[in-house]
């Protein structure tokens, strides 16, 4: 009797345990992991709040936000993806470079036509060549490269700001004049990035592609711009301390010098607006100015970052729908002070800073003036190979490791070598 009772008790316990296990598995939330890099709390706090809100409203989905440094997106994510690992969604800037890993979420989003209508021109930047229909994600923010000036220094020097149509040479000349009159150590500073060099190079006539549309980096336009950058470094218009502090294709931004009012003219882009509004504050007035001109154009480079999917399932689709909705995007863009990648978005920017407002207007106004070559370059799957070749070889020439002639030869060789490694042959 006793033995039977024990057997019964064990059976009941086992069945209850199994049922609990089955129900736990059935009702467990689906995890969606997002790898996110942000420009500090300015971007991380709003996205974290949106994710919390989503999780609260969707108990069947558990979105995990992994906030990582930008380097992890550039260097770690590609290796994770190559090894068949990686997140479900990531915020990416090498938009075409990772396209072989993107998943098509078309079947899982509520309204695919919304993505076409809202992010149309950018969707092709993510797609593989020949693909015109897949939906992989959406543009989180759009960016435009362009210069900023320390307006206070211009006023102190009694030098007028130049208007639209001013050339690079003219901007360099007035920056030197302001620096001399105000005792500012660095007339000009640029982000150390091939992407930043490319807009001005296109303005000088660089084409980046041959007649077949294949990468052909070095031409007279690129030579003219890179020679100018080389000369500015040798003459002290640009400080070797900025680009010299790293090697290879490593990115370096001169924000510390800019924030300390040690730079008259800084070539960067629209993503700095929120940061400057926070970090510069009332220390000095800063303005974004129209992209300086060369003989061929007066253009910056378009760009931006996108939230792209590496796994396609209903949960990922739902998260994408939520984050790309007008309401969420408008709230996010309004807080981070960026240019929207959404084509039809009214943004209420949450700032009283007149410098930030002016800069947002300037960069938004610059979008229609972006040259077609710049759009083609940004959309090209191998653009990073070209950007990196420019910056690493120009960096070597500037510090005296090679001549500019050798640097140009090496730039072309680097591109050719990497394309061979990637595509064979």
């Amino acid at each position, binding site marked *: 009797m006793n033995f039977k009772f024990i057997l019964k008790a064990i059976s009941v316990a086992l069945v209850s345990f199994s049922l609990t296990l089955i129900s736990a598995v059935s009702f467990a939330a689906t995890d969606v992991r997002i790898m996110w890099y942000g420009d500090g709390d300015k971007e991380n706090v709003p996205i974290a709040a949106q994710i919390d809100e989503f999780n609260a409203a969707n108990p069947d989905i558990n979105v995990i936000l992994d906030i990582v440094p930008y*380097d992890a997106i*550039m*260097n770690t994510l*590609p*290796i994770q993806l*190559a*090894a*068949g690992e990686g997140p479900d969604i990531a915020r990416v800037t*090498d938009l075409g*470079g990772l396209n072989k890993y993107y998943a098509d979420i078309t079947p899982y989003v509520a309204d695919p036509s919304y993505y076409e209508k809202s992010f149309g021109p950018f969707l092709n930047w993510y797609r593989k060549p020949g693909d015109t229909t897949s939906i992989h994600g959406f543009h989180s923010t759009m960016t435009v490269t362009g210069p900023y000036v320390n307006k206070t220094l211009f006023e102190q020097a009694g030098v007028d700001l130049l208007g639209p149509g001013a050339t690079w040479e003219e901007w360099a000349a007035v920056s030197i004049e302001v620096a001399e009159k105000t005792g500012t150590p660095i007339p000009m500073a640029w982000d150390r990035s091939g992407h930043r060099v490319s807009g001005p190079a296109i303005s000088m006539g660089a084409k980046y592609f041959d007649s077949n549309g294949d990468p052909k980096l070095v031409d007279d336009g690129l030579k003219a711009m890179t020679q100018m950058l080389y000369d500015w470094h040798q003459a002290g218009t640009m400080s*070797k*301390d900025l*680009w*010299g*502090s*790293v*090697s*290879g*294709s*490593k*990115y370096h931004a001169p924000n510390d010098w800019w924030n300390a009012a040690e730079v008259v003219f800084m070539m960067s882009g629209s993503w700095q607006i929120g940061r400057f509004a926070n970090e510069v504050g009332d220390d000095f007035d800063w303005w974004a100015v129209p992209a300086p001109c060369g003989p061929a154009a007066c253009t910056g480079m378009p760009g931006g970052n996108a939230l792209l999917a590496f796994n396609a399932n209903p949960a990922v689709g739902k998260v994408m729908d939520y984050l790309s909705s007008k309401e969420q995007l408008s709230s996010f863009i309004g807080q981070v002070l960026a240019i929207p990648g959404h084509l039809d978005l009214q943004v209420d920017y949450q700032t009283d800073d007149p410098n930030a407002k002016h800069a947002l207007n300037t960069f938004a106004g610059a979008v229609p003036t972006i040259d077609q070559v710049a759009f083609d370059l940004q959309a090209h799957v191998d653009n*990073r*190979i070209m*950007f*990196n*070749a420019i910056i690493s070889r120009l*960096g*070597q020439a*500037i*510090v*005296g*490791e*090679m001549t500019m002639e*050798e640097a140009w030869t*090496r730039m072309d*060789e680097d591109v050719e*070598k*990497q394309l061979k*490694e*990637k595509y*064979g042959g």
Partner: protein
Amino acid sequence: MENIRNQTKIFFLRILNIPFAFLMHAIDLIMWPIQKIIGVRNMPYIFLLPNLIFFGLFVIIPLGANFFFSLSSGDELLFAERELPTTKQYDQLFDCESYLNPNTCTEDFFWRGVYNTIFFVVFQVGLMIFFSVLTAVILNKKIIGRGFFRSVFFFPVLLSPVVVGLIWQWILLKNGAFNAIIESYGGDKISFLTDPSWAMASVIFVSIWAHMGFYTLIVLAGLQAIPPNLYEAAEMDGTSRERIFFRITLPLLMPNLLVVFILASIKGVQTFDEIYVLTGGGPGTSTSLIVQYIFTTGFASSGSVQNFGLAAAASMVLGVVLLFLTLMQLYFSRNKESKHQEI
């Protein structure tokens, strides 16, 4: 009373012994049949097996994988998707018109890394030995606060290389602490980290600062092992201090200095992290060593093609250099042991 105390002690020891006895019996249950099958003589291999499995998993297999990667090409990570076998990576690495001029090599970054590494190792190791001996000799004397100073010289060894890099970056930057001092005395700021002619010197200095304590300790141990009666005899003969140092101290320190030389050389060739934090390998490539080339080529290409094959080939070359240095160390340490046995 004493007897009761002893018996209580034995009782508690027995109780404490129960889990160990249980464990040993459990192991014996497994080992006994194995020993029956393979014999007592082969049992050491069984005891070595767990360690060998881990060694194989984390050293031998990656080494083999690295070798196969070096014989493959493409930008895919998985072997199945890579072109194999090919000597393309080695051909590319050694394709030079003149090995003395990196600009004539296809992989000029690799050769710049090679020359920078040679320069770095020669000066870093040479100066490190010099300063280690100097410091050890001073710390071996009966000075006030000797224990304190010994600790001070050893502390940097305990720091993470990233911390070392960051600390010295704050000190040596153009707007850093050191330049502030120079400026306060009316001098001009120096670009310690961004002027090619200063950057390598700064990197060598920081590396010596960070690692000298360890080597000083080895030399100090050598100094303390020298029999004091040799010094007493020399003093009685009226030998000068310089002569004592060069004729007694230095020759008897030689085995230790050899160890320091080889260990410092191996470490020098492998240097990466503190330089990567301090200068990023720049300006240009003036402080970029081989390991940084491998890292950048394979893993940190910032959107360019991640060339795992080329990085693997370069690390095979580095492996050969390290193997040579290790064999040298083994040869000399065995030579030293056999001499001791002869004595």
